[in-house]
Structures are given as C-alpha cells and as structure tokens.
C-alpha cells in the first residue's frame, strides 16, 4: 500500500489510465454515434476495430517498418473498414431499422460471429504485432516515470477527435442535419433530407473510427482473435456510463473507465473488471440514460 503515497508511481498509473481512456474514447465514440442517430447497439463495432487492426498489420508488412509505412497502413486500414461499413449498411443493416431491438441486437451479433471467422480464415490465429513508428518510438523520463511518445500521441489525439466532432456536430450544416436526424428521423425526411444516405454516411463514419482505432492500437496490443469481443464489452461499458448517444458522455465514460482500471488495481487488485461492471450497473439503476445522456422517448 506504500505505493499509494508515491506521487511518481501514481503519475505512471495516471499515464496508463489516460492512454486506455483515450483509446476507448476513439472506439466508443463510433458506437455512441451509431446509437445516437441510428438507435442501434452495434456489437459488430468491435469486429470492425479488429479488421482495422489486421489490415494495418498486413499493410505494415507490405509497406515496411517506417513512419510513412505506418501512416500508410493506418490510412488504408481506416478507409477499407469505412468502405466495409458502408457495404454492410447498404446491403443488410438498413432493413433492420424498423425491427424490434431484440432482432437488431441479434443481427449485429451475427455479424460479430461471421467477421471473427473471416478474420481467422484470412489472417490465421497466431498473434501479430506491429512495432511503433520510428517517429513515435521514443520516450522521455520524468523522475523515473516513463512516458512513451506513442502514449502521449494517443492521449493528445482523444481530445482532438472529441473537439473535431464537437465542431462538426455543432458548427457545420451537416452536423445540424445529423442532430436533427437523432431527434426525429421522419420529420427530417419530410423536410426533404435524404435520411437513408445520411444513415449510410453515419455508419461509414463510425466504421472509419473503428478501423482507425484498430490500426492505432497495433503498436500497443498484439493483434489476436478475440480482441473484437474484448473491446466491445469495454466500449459498451464506457458508452453506457457516459450516456449512449452523448459525445461528451462518452469522453467522461472513457476517463472513468480508464482511471478506475488503472487505480482500481492498486486498491482492489483482484476485482477491477468487477468494479467496471458495478459502475455500469449503478449508473443504469440511477440514471439509465447515462451520466450525460438524454432520456430516450
């Protein structure tokens, strides 16, 4: 328990907690966006993330271990996953919007099953890893606490994406339409907006974010089967805590989750996953729509 009083040790935990939180924010923001506008809980979001990771690994093998190669891999992975998302939405998902929630859930779960096997078929079951891009491979020491540049990059990227989203949703005409679609789809359609292609666009955007986070996670975690299910549970906890459909809620939820995990290990070493689910349950009991969410009609 002595380490609890050591500020530098705590700083190290803070760094790892914030990195986890910002990663989760990248993934969970797409999940939250889909729920906010399309009103669907997309279990397959984790699968898109995994596909992004596999494509990124594959591309670094082709493009080489340079910073440009890594950047190229990230771009190719996010764009391909975005296209895949668009195809799924056009061919299948759009027929699910009017179905009961139970069927929507099972539909996205079916996609999870299919994508996980497709990944196994294409990329095998052995773990793959990607080294950090040379430009971000370093780290600096702060009184013995190591800060890898890559972690700092991720910590900076999270708020940047959040801010970008905020500008997009609140200061552009597209954003206004999207907010309107979240409130009343039919009215928006009656006013002459092509809601169907708007939905496709939203799903493509969310898939892009999933692919991007999958690609960016490769230098930190190895790419293995099962990473889809692991991440979707975490992202799900995050959006439920923060409020499904709320961007700032998702950011807050990510911070709560990441920091609970990082510091919970110190106080409560054996039950840190347990703590996350308890927080989720308590939030659902007290405020089912999440800390910063809005009650759904």
């Amino acid at each position: 328990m002595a380490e609890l009083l050591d500020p530098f040790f705590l700083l190290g935990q803070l760094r790892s907690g914030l990195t986890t939180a910002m990663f989760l924010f990248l993934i969970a923001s797409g999940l939250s966006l889909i729920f906010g506008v399309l009103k669907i809980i997309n279990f397959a979001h984790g699968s898109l993330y995994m596909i992004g990771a596999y494509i990124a690994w594959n591309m670094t093998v082709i493009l080489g271990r340079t910073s440009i190669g890594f950047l190229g891999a990230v771009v190719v992975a996010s764009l391909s996953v975005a296209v895949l998302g668009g195809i799924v939405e056009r061919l299948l998902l759009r027929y699910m919007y009017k179905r009961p929630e139970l069927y929507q859930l099972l539909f996205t779960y079916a996609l999870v099953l299919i994508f996980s096997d497709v990944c196994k078929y294409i990329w095998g079951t052995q773990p793959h890893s990607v080294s950090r891009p040379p430009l971000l491979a370093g780290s600096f020491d702060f009184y013995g606490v190591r800060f890898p540049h890559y972690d700092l990059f991720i910590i900076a990227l999270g708020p940047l994406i959040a801010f970008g989203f905020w500008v997009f949703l609140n200061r552009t005409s597209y954003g206004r339409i999207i907010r309107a679609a979240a409130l009343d789809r039919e009215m928006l359609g009656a006013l002459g907006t092509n809601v169907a292609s708007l939905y496709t666009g939203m799903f493509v955007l969310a898939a892009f974010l999933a692919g991007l986070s999958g690609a960016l996670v490769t230098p930190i975690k190895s790419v293995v089967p099962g990473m889809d299910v692991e991440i979707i549970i975490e992202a799900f906890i995050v959006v439920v805590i923060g409020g499904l459909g709320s961007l700032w809620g998702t950011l807050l939820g990510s911070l709560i989750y990441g920091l609970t995990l990082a510091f919970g290990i110190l106080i409560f070493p054996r039950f840190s996953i347990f703590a996350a689910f308890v927080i989720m349950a308590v939030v659902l009991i007290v405020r089912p729509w999440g800390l910063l969410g809005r009650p759904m009609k």
Partner: protein
Amino acid sequence: MKASAAGLSKRIPWMLVLFLIAALIPVIGSRYYTFLATDIIIFAMFATSLNLLIGYTGLVSFGHAAYFGVGAYVCAIFMKDLGVPFLAAWLLGGVGGALFAAVFGFFCVRLTSVYFSMLTMAFAQIVWAICFKWNDVTGGEQGYPNVPMPSMAWLEWIPWIGGLRIDHKFFYLTLILAALSIAAMRRIVHSPFGRMLTSIRDNAERAQFNGINVRLYQLIVFSIAGGFAGLAGGLFGIFNRGVFPDFCYWPKSAEVLIMTILGGIHSFWGPSVGAAILILLNQYIVSYTEYWPFVLGTILLVLLFGFPGGVVGAIIDLFRRLRSAARGQR
C-alpha cells in the same frame, strides 16, 4: 372431418408422447445419442425458462446465463463440498437462481426496453466476474471440476434401468426432472398469472390501467425464470462434470437467446425445438469445419431476414397457408 382431426390432435397428450419417445433414445441409439439427448433436454429447459421472459412477458433478458451459472455453482458446491444429496442440492440451485434473479430483477424491471437488456447483462457480467475471481469458493478461472454424479441407487430396483450404465441413468434422471420443470412452466403460462403476463407484453400501459401491478408481475416472472434457469444449470454442471465461469459469461446468454429465437418465441415448444436444432447442427458442422461461428452467424442472418417467427413459427405459418389454400379451392 377436419374438426374431428383437430379434436383428435388436441386429445393426444403430446407431452407424454414426446416423453416416451425421448425415453427410448438410450434403447435405440448409442451412448453418443444419449449424450446429445441429455444436452438437448437441459438446454430445452434453459431456453424455455428464457422464453417465459421474452415470449410471454416481452422482457428481453441479455443476462439469463447468470442464473444458469448460479444454479450450477450452488448445486455443485452443495454436493461436493457439503455432501448434500443431489435432489436437495439441485433444488437449492434453483432457489439460488431465483434469489439472484429476484435481487437483480428488482432493479431491472424498473427499466424499459433496451435499458432493461443492458442492466440484465451488466448484472450477469458481475456474477461472471465474481465466479471468475473468487478462487476459494468457485475455483476461479480454473472452474469447479469433478462434480460428483448423483447417487442413483434408488434407480436400482427398477428392473431394466437398474442395470444401465451411469450416463444412461443420468439421462433418465435429467429427462424426468426436466419434464417436470417444463410441465410446471407450461402450467404457469396457461394459468391466470400467465395470461396477465401476456397482457403486460401486449400493452403494459393498459395492463397498468386495469390495476395490474406490472413491475411486481415482471419481478415474479423474472425470479421464476431465474429459478428454472438455475435448475437447468444444476443439471448441466453434473452433466459437464464441472462448472466454469463461462456458464455465466455473456456469449452463453447470447447462445440461449439464439436457441429461443431460432425455435420461435411465439410458441411454448419453440425454444426446445431451437435448442435441439442448434445442438444437433453444432455437432454435425463441427465435424466438418472449425468455422462454426461463421455458420451460426449465417443461420442467424437467414433467420432474421427470412423467418423472424423462428422455425416453429414458420411451420405454423406454412400449415395455416396450406389450410387456407385448401379452403380456397373448395
């Protein structure tokens, strides 16, 4: 002519017929078929208990595996660590499932639609995390192995059954207990209480206006379903010769949900049919390819787009169409 045929089909005690056919399985088939049949019977019971919530009350629980797991652990721990005889331990497993469901359900029934599903799942994950980490009692990640077989000495005096091997005896024990449980569930859904549940499913607001305490009814059926899931879990722990945290994990909840939907939520026997189809299909396909999840996902897509009423729903639909076609010709 037709009316009498329908009357005849109603007069046949279908449950008894099914029970007798099932009882013949060890006689006709090999040990392997007995094994499969035991598995199917246990999951039929589990899926039917879930359908009390989904099909009859309109509550989509995404954490039903929690109560299955609780029942399995309680039954196994009482039998192995405390030496309680099987029947008492099994019933205690059911009570354990019902108690957990009552406590969790108290909070869950306050929420509607998607939030209800999420909270049931969160509670199930809490149960899973406890089972996964509480090494001293549940064996943690390693599970709780070597659950003893019930002593089935009392079966010895039955002339033919007495001489059977242990897994055949366990099959008969499972068949009897599951048949009793399923019959009990059937009584429940056809009772006035069950009718209240369907009225809540169809229109909770109207039921409330008619003076039904909707939440109380939902809580009671949630506990009952948890209890039957616990009973199924107790049997499965023994059948599986061990209880593992996976029993409570969310893919297990998804599995039983798929069985229920696959069979059809709008008929009492749908979930049992779904359990049988899924288990048989799994056995068949796994012997050809390792990509069972892909096949299952594809089946789900076909089901969702083609047969939203499930297999039983599709069959009933087909019969209805044939009948109306026959009537049209006359």
